[in-house]
């Protein structure tokens, strides 16, 4: 994401900084990966539907080609002792990488102890109670959204 910001805001000046933050927050609350949602939003802003299409293709095709080749290689050589030893380490490193994302996102977007309760409820529902992801998403999501319902004081604050 820092790389994306550098390219879009600083180098190309396709979007302003404030707009970038706004687009990012939309991307995060929609289903879909942040990177591809950003591509759609920026593409739409620059040149409509064609822009979105070009942006998402550019975003996806190199990685897709890469992973198709990785898949073919893995199918043929996955049992090789070198490959499986290396992949054990790669998978462990990926777990650490995801955990660091969890920590960074929590620092940035969780406010107050109730947000941590909602986060914990989500984890317990999926990992312990074996609820499906959609059921958890809708169930805990609705409670959390209602908890953060628009408050009257906020509306008064924004009055001119």
């Amino acid at each position, binding site marked *: 994401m820092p790389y994306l910001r550098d390219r879009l805001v600083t180098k190309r000046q396709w979007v302003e900084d404030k707009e970038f933050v706004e687009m990012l*927050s939309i991307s995060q*609350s929609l*289903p*879909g*990966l*942040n*990177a591809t949602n950003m591509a*759609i*939003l920026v593409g*739409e802003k620059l040149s409509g*539907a064609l822009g*979105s299409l070009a942006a*998402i293709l550019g*975003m*996806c095709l190199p*990685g*897709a080609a*890469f*992973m*198709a080749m*990785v*898949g073919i290689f*893995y199918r043929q050589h*996955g049992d090789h*002792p070198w490959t499986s*030893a290396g*992949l*054990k*380490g*790669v*998978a*462990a*490193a*990926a*777990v*650490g*990488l*995801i955990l660091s*994302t*969890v920590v960074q*996102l929590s620092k940035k*977007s*969780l406010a107050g102890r109730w*947000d941590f*309760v*909602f986060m914990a409820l*989500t984890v317990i*529902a*999926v*990992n312990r109670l074996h609820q499906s*992801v959609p059921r*958890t*998403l809708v169930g805990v*999501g609705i409670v*959390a959204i209602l*908890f*953060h*319902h*628009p408050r009257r004081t*906020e509306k008064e604050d924004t009055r001119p």
Partner: protein
Amino acid sequence: MNQILDLVRVFAFLSLLTVGGGMAAFPEMKILTVDVHKWLTFPQLIHLYSVGQLAPGPNMMMIVSIGEWAGGFLGAVLTLLAFFGPTAVLAFVVARLWKRLEKWPWRRSIQQGLAPVSIGLLLAGCFTMARGAITGLETATIAVGVLLILLQYKVNPALLVVGGGIIGILSFLPK
């Protein structure tokens, strides 16, 4: 042909679960691709996801590998479309509507409410993956090491993933 239809159905469904990031769909992806359709094994899923961290672009490109295994070239292409198409259309529609929603007070509530849930889903996906990936002291050490380095320094995560692979070859290669 049935296989391809299953691929499209499964990945279009999974795409709608990726709120906040691809990892949110991981527990459901494990159930559908490994347990239900048996396109690959759980360790294989973990390996492909992990190597996918090295791919350019979004970090869920391993879905293409699954599509290719289960349905060849056509499977790969349709999986890609099924996984990115629906959410792309949704994002496009929202991009059009968003200006109009700017004054809608619930917009902020939705963003604030979904934040903890999406982080929770990410963590749940991480735990699901850790169950298969963290098998002993060595793998736990690699994971904690990567976590601490990333929290402390600005490093390209791909380098650490490669580093993990090198440590893996050095420590797990049968002598």
